[in-house]
């Protein structure tokens, strides 16, 4: 199973509004469930997601136990220069994952 998936247009015209999609595989265990024996299953969720465009933060999301497994985010930004989108997911138990994608703006 792929751990992180991102979808950024490879190229765009300057000023275009572009869609960015990001999905990461994660159990998103709420911390509210119990095993058959009655023990609480410890919380294990992603707590934050950020997207930086050439180093500048353009999107951030804080996540909570109500978010379903394998969180999928889609958002829009304006393509204004060629460069890199960097993605970062941070969560419980030291979870950390990064990904990046390049864009050419003409």
């Amino acid at each position, binding site marked *: 199973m792929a751990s992180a998936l991102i*979808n950024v247009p490879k190229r765009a015209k300057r000023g275009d509004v572009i869609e960015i999609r990001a*999905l990461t*595989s994660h159990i998103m265990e709420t911390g509210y469930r119990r095993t058959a024996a009655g023990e609480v299953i410890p919380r294990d969720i992603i707590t934050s997601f950020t997207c930086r465009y050439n180093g500048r933060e353009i999107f951030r999301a804080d996540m909570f136990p109500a978010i379903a*497994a394998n969180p999928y985010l889609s958002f829009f930004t304006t393509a204004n220069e060629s460069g890199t989108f960097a993605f970062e997911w941070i969560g419980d138990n030291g979870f950390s994952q990064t990904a990046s994608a390049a864009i050419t703006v003409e």
Partner: protein
Amino acid sequence: MNAVREIGRRNAIRGGLALAASLALPSIARTQTSARVVVIGGGFGGAACARALKQFDAKLQVTLVEPNKVFTACPFSNEVIAGLRDIGAQQFGYEKIAAAGIDVVANAAAKVDPQVHRVTLADGSTLSYDRLVLAPGIEVRFDALSGYDEAASRKMPHAWQAGEQTLLLRRQIESMDDGGVVAIAVPANPLRCPPAPYERASLIAYYLKQHKPRSKVLILDAKDNFSQQRLFEKAWHEIYDGMIERISLSDGGRATAVDPATNTIVTEFGDHVAQVANVIPPQRAGRIAQVAGAADKTGWCPIDPMTFASKLLPDVHVIGDACLGGGIPKSAAAASAQGRACARAIVNGLAGKAPETPRLTGICYDTVAPGYAFSLAGLYQPKDDMFAEIEGGGTSALDAPREVRAREAEAAQSWYRTITEETFG
């Protein structure tokens, strides 16, 4: 078919007179004469319902409206795609149904006026009814995937309504070069016959293994989990190791658009160019259900599970794939069982009797190779305004030996012979 048409026209006139008479009579008197039931759609649900109505009450005037003179069955049509079966084995006429005293009208229903209890056909003639049964099956949505319209379906077949589409997909696979990719785009639930995309992938892999062993099947799935998943995946590992690849929803498999010019299926996270692209788009209740106003915003028809009565239209019942059946899968076996239960409810209702609680059974066989099949049997009863699966069903064991799979493959053939004989024979 002229005779059938004539009967249809005569019935249309008779219907008109009966309506005029009915306006002057209290409804109880009307039902004591011969009530008129019109069934729209001659598939497994509608045909079973029409026959059961006549069987339960021979005095009923039953009309079956179905534009196709020959019915092409979906169950086993995946074997046609894989070259294992002739399309002729899927096709049935309506002669025996007409011989059972049912007026078979070879025309399409264009409009329903529920307030005056009247159906208008494509040729402008009308049929009046006391009870109407809608069994229109599904409509493939040409507004759900960007680029996937009716023209695109002639290049990238859905083959989700058996017939020419089935044969088109078969021809494309037969003419593909060895080493090609057959991609199957699968929609989210609800869809007609939930395990069928995976049976299709299996049987296409069977064909490829025999004839084009360097080729692959790629499933682009809008779901993470699917019906009979563990049984399918075990069979794929045993028989088609490496030939079938599946990209699930969480792996970015959901199709969002297609490009027929390049045979590309675009998913949320990538583009997939296929030599053969089988695009199964999202679906909704058949068109007449939409036109009549029996469907809600989900695209499907809400019903009272005790009687299959529409929650939106008076004296209209909806059965088969078109209805919101709760836990019942959209399958031929379920539609047939619903058709009979609906007929019972209509006959009881017309006689002023209380409805009986329907207890439906549905069975679904999945064939992954000749001589290798498994099954899922379910029992369903109304619960809290929906159908719910109840105890007593079962699924094939994951670790069953090959002899059991072979017996299930024979049982599947036998099931098909029985249901088609009961419905059309």
